[in-house]
């Protein structure tokens, strides 16, 4: 009997681990990735009542007093999507773009913004750890996003041009053109913008040149850096937070992750799954008559006196 319990426990543990294994992944920045390069920890932070995952850009229509967070977009936005985002922006909302790739530039270009993300990574002597790509940056302009933030550590950020600078690198920074993490010929020290803002109609466009502030390994930074406060400021910047889940790499997931996401998001499917699980549990845990066959070895004619205890 004890072995049965043990085997059942192991099966449950295996199923649990299997479930975790199948519903997580190792995709860069994915919300289902609990590893260092995933963004699972960030996605646990927003308030579920004020945060909405935007699975379709068309859902932005009619939204007010909201911040639309776009982390590391991939591919290109269609003209219709660009128009929806532009309308959202000019309607008095905020767009916060965190990206270091050309996809971000493509979106900025579509929104007629003057802000651009540079092609090469930044490096600096003001670094948080033993790598010049993990640079320490500082606010240069008062802005609600930098409230309580004295410094922000970035993980392979790129320089921004245009817009109003909110956070810049230290002066001992350079654009690492040859990606050797060192000052080389043709590279020059200078102060570079990593967070910039721009007014667009009644709305505000904010661009951060590094999506790395949202990855799990950066959430474990020491409190002396203001990353946690900065993330909190982003989440609470506007009453409502909308997180892009159409083109963003945070939405990348494997098939099982997609399945799990679908189950989580649809109440009917969720109810069905719970029902099936309960039925399965009931089937396996149903009361069965005990197997007493080993007690009865067959008729014994000699010891009639013991037979009366047969059914004890």
């Amino acid at each position: 009997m004890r072995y049965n319990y043990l085997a059942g426990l192991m099966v449950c543990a295996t199923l649990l681990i299997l479930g975790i294994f199948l519903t997580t992944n190792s995709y860069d920045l994915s919300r289902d990735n609990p590893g260092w390069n995933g963004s699972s920890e960030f996605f646990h932070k927003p308030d579920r009542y004020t945060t909405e995952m935007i699975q379709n850009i068309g859902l932005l229509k009619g939204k007010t007093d909201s911040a639309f967070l776009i982390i590391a977009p991939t591919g290109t936005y269609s003209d219709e999507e660009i128009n929806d985002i532009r309308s959202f922006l000019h309607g008095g909302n905020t767009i916060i773009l965190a990206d270091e790739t050309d996809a971000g530039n493509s979106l900025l270009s579509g929104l007629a913004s003057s802000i651009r993300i540079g092609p090469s990574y930044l490096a600096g002597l003001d670094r948080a750890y033993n790598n010049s790509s993990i640079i320490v940056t500082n606010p240069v302009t008062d802005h609600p996003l930098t409230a309580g933030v004295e410094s922000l550590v970035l993980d392979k950020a790129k320089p921004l041009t245009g817009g109003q600078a909110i956070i810049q690198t230290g002066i001992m920074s350079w654009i690492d053109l040859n990606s050797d993490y060192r000052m080389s010929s043709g590279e020059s020290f200078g102060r570079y913008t990593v967070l910039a803002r721009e007014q667009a109609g009644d709305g505000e466009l904010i661009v951060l040149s590094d999506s790395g502030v949202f990855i799990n390994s950066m959430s474990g930074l020491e409190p002396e850096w203001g990353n946690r406060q900065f993330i909190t400021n982003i989440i609470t910047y506007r009453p409502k937070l909308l997180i892009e889940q159409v083109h963003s790499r945070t939405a990348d997931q494997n098939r099982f992750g997609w399945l799990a996401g679908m189950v989580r998001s649809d109440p009917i499917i969720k109810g069905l799954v719970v029902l099936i699980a309960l039925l399965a549990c009931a089937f396996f845990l149903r009361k069965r008559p005990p197997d007493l066959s080993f007690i009865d070895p067959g008729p014994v004619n000699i010891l009639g006196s013991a037979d009366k205890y047969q059914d004890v």
Partner: protein
Amino acid sequence: MVVIIVAGLLVGNGVTPQLYPVGKNIQETSYHLNAGDLRKQAFNSSTDLLPLMQELLDYSGTIAVTLRKDDIESASHDLSRYASRYHDLQNLVIRLDMNESEIAHFSEDTGKQKDLLSQFVSSSESLKSLEKLEIQYHDEHDPDSVTRVRLQGRALKNRIQTLQNQYADVTDSLSARGGSLGVDTSPVRQSRTELDHLTGMVAERQSERDRYTRFAKAGTPFISFLPAQVNVTFQDKVEMYGFISGSQEENFPVEISIDNVPFLKIVPDEIGEFRSSFKVHNISAGDHVLKARWGTAYSEPSMIHVTPLETKLALKVLPVKGMAAVNLTWLLNARDPVPAVPVTIYQNNQAYDTVLTSQAGTCLVMVPIPEGTFDLFVRSEDPAYPLTPSESQHYTVISDGIQITSVTSSNTSPFQPVMLIVPAILLFAIPAIYFWRKGIVGTRANGFLEESPNNMESNVPVTGQNIPGSWDGDMSISAEAFTEPDGSPRWLYLDLLRVLSGCQEIVISPVMTPREISESIQEDECRTGFTRFINWYERVWYGGCTRPGCTKAMTEAAAAVRELCKGRKDEI
């Protein structure tokens, strides 16, 4: 088992490895580095700091300053920090974060121009030592493009002169016009005076700095040099870093010498940095002077201390079949196998030959042996290497001139039987004592049963050792029966076993299960009764039934077994 393996694999897959290969100890994707890995690294170790310090001390590359139209103070602050940290500012990039129309407005704003010129003056020795000026700005209609205007050499000086003249003209013009119109032009004149004053002050400060700073004159060749490890031993790696500055007629490589003997040439990179390393090999033990030379410039000497490393030399001599010769193989070890070090072969204390070890620290040499008896060994003792002298064991080789008749090692000791006997005794004695203590061997249960007081209570006649094939076995069980309280389930079971062994002529092994014992009973009635007893016994003994009824049924079943199984003995 499958579940365990699957669970193990899944857990293993999900757990982040704690150890990474040395060559790639920081996880990295196309976009990010793992800050968690970096946190585990020691920050600012000497290896990391050295090049960083060199960069800070010797940097004379380009400085970029971003000028925003409303933030001249920030640029001014940056430039003053550069000026306080660096000794030589040859190239300056003014990055105008404005578009062309803003630049046009800017050019019309004499106040801001004055500020801009102040930046030039305060940071670049009145612009005289500035070799290159680059101005970058964005096209108004294409924010993606950056227009660069580079000014160098004579063109730069002309441009600076033009700027200064323009500023002077503007201020003179403003003063003149303001004066003619009765406007107070003192602020304009004041700004001009301030600029001149600032120019003179910075130039004076720069000349002061020149006196104390050897880097100040860009033309004077200079070389800095620093080895990373100064206390080393054989095969240790010495890292070397350095920078060159200034100019020379030719592009000399950097020459590294040890005790004034050049041994390495390094070509500096484009910004004058050089770095290399070497392994300590044929450098004698003791102190040595390392120095770098770049053309006519010599670095400060750096000392390294080389400590000798202890070595061991293992030799093996084997006769060559059909020849009067032996093969010598040896391995020279000093922490690791020692490559490319001379080892001398000695024959009757006379040096026969010297051979270098291979990369694996080994060597194979065939030595012809004439008729007679010879003492062979090898020795490593070259003082040019930081290794302690070492000598192998000696071999006595006897040759009859045609073939080798005997090879004897000096290390070969006569056979020591004790070396074999003691472990053998221990090997057999320990299990023997163990089994003896457990009672598995050496005791017959019947002997005990004869002495058992329980025996007297049994109705079964004690036949003991006289019954062939009877229970000959388990002292522990017998002893257990002795300790069990009368009438307990275990006592009943053991008592029945004794009955069975005595009456049914079955051999009961200590490892037999009750079911196996039951199956070995030949008489059907006895077997059936014993099986019934076992059913009750197992339920009571293992806690399946704690009711008195079960115990009673078991007792009755035991009594029935005694009754049913004594028949065979009676027949006998």
